[in-house]
């Protein structure tokens, strides 16, 4: 085993990747179902909540964030906060132009 393979082995964890995948697919189906709800504001809120869960699963298990030191998690959280500031700013602009 080369030193690089050994290093790769160190970051490996016993994670049920396939089970996580099926949860992600189920969450996608839930999002599609929610899109046809009559209460549009509630539907949008729930759809983004499901998206947050999906992103959390991918970041936590597929990107191994769940197994990284706390400061690495903080760096990622800072990026996510900036993303929401960007989305919020754009949303305000769109609501201003189209009147909601």
């Amino acid at each position, binding site marked *: 085993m080369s030193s690089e393979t050994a290093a790769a082995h160190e970051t490996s964890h016993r994670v049920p990747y396939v089970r996580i995948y099926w949860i992600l697919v189920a969450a996608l189906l839930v999002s599609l179902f929610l899109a046809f709800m009559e209460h549009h504001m509630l539907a949008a809120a729930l759809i983004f909540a499901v*998206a947050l869960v999906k992103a959390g699963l991918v970041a936590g298990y*597929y990107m191994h964030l769940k197994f990284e030191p706390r400061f690495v998690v903080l760096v990622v959280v800072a990026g996510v906060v900036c993303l929401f500031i960007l989305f919020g700013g754009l949303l305000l602009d769109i609501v201003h132009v189209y009147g909601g």
Partner: protein
Amino acid sequence: MGKLAAHTLTPAGAVNTFVLLTSSLCMVLAHEAVSRGNLRLASQAMMQTIFCGFVFMGIKAFEYGHEVAQGFTPVAGLFWSFYYAMTGLHALHVLGGMFAILAVRKAVARGQHVRRVEIVGIYWHFVDIVWIFLFPLLYLASRG
């Protein structure tokens, strides 16, 4: 905005979400295979990831063609400018990721730079996460 967003092809977006989730699974399985020293399996899983990337780009191209044919061009309004900018930039990142995975796969097939599978995998999963938010934003949440 809601009426404009209703013109995006939700089934195509949903299939593309499924394709990207599948590609993420393939990529993480490639990383796991490398961790176990199975470079052949890792190489196969990376090829499957690249294949998923091709499928994603093909569906996206079909969507663009359909939307432009209906008159929804990038200059058709604020929503469509935002739609094409966000999905176009995302597609460029998918394309870049496909080239990166291909380069890493070639090295891994020779038994070199196996650590890069994890690095390129993290990039690919990030591209997946961006789509996880773009899909509800552009296809689902504003259909009303």
